[in-house]
């Protein structure tokens, strides 16, 4: 019984992740959406926020995206967004540094 589906998280300039997964959770404009294998074809607009994916081997990752689309068809889920940052790629120190920089900028601007 195929209870997995192909998931691809695609950013504008690269494919961030693709593989088999069991559950995808994302936030659309209409609210949270949870997708499991053999979901009915759907196309929806994703809000800014995080995508949560459980992979086949009991793995789990989340990614931050800046809004985009989700389309589900033929047991394939495509998550499209312009920029995405995936949890196991992002670096705590780097993120912290960026946050500090952004804070400093906004303080300087105000």
């Amino acid at each position, binding site marked *: 019984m195929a209870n997995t589906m192909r998931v691809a998280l695609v950013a504008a300039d690269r494919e961030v992740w693709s593989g088999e997964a069991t559950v995808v959770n994302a936030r659309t404009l209409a609210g949270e*959406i949870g997708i499991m294998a053999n979901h009915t074809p759907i196309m929806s*607009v994703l809000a800014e926020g995080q995508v949560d994916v459980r992979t086949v081997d009991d793995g789990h990752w989340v990614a931050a995206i800046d809004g985009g689309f989700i389309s589900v068809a033929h047991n394939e889920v495509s998550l499209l967004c312009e920029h995405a940052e995936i949890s196991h790629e992002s670096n705590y120190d780097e993120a912290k540094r960026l946050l500090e920089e952004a804070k400093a900028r906004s303080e300087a601007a105000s």
Partner: protein
Amino acid sequence: MAVSLREYRARIKSTESMKKITRAMELIAASRIIKAQQRAQQAAPYARELTRAVSALATYSDADHPLTTEPENPTKAAILVITSDRGLAGAYSSSVLKEGERLAERLREEGKQITTFIAGRKGEAYFRFRNRPVRESWTGFSDQPQYDNAREIGKALIDAFVDEGDEGVDEVHIVYTRFRSMLVQEPHSVRMLPLEVVEGEEKPPEDEVLPLYEFEPSADEVLDALLPKYVQSRIFYALLQASASELAARQKAMKSATDNAEELIKKFTRIANQARQAGITQEISEIVGGVNALADAQAGSE
């Protein structure tokens, strides 16, 4: 004679250093092309998925959208010309500008007013030099375009297109250089807006039927969000193609510059050798002449 020999040597030297520079630029361009091609490949999945989504929407919903409706009587057209930031790429910029002029000419014959948008410093300079108005221009990314650049350009073009006022335009064309292969890059113009329905462009191979999607919140809203992204992704694609073409053109131009420098060095070396030989011959004949004259004078006095 000796002076010109020195001159030739200096020229050989400067040509040699020129050759080194052009050779380095050739190698840099060559290595960057591979990167540019990889970037184009990496951007492909996004464009493919987006195209699929748009064609699904176009097939299964009769939603009308401002970006897809043809104006009844188009009188104003915008042209975006994608050129390079830097020169030394052979005819790259001039040929894409020429294609832009051709397109502008054709549109003018159809009775349309032209508004120009420019990407790349070379195009900007071209229009400024001729004192021709440019609505907006973007520079600084021609050899490594980012998606954000495409987004900015796309936003400006869409804004101009949906604007109903005097500033608005009825159609948007893009002129860029298509990367066919390392040897062939051709300037190419496409009409970007209003969007033509993209059905059949990149159909799934086995003619699979597009699934009957449910749209959330509604088909209109999905279309609203999808179409601008589609336009931006098309622009991004054009930018990536243009950057690969620019690098290929630069590599080709620098290769022939290096070859020319080599030829020049050969030629100058020959001339320098001739000059040296002529100098030696003259010296010998002077010595011989002097000895003869001396011998004659001594023979006369004895």
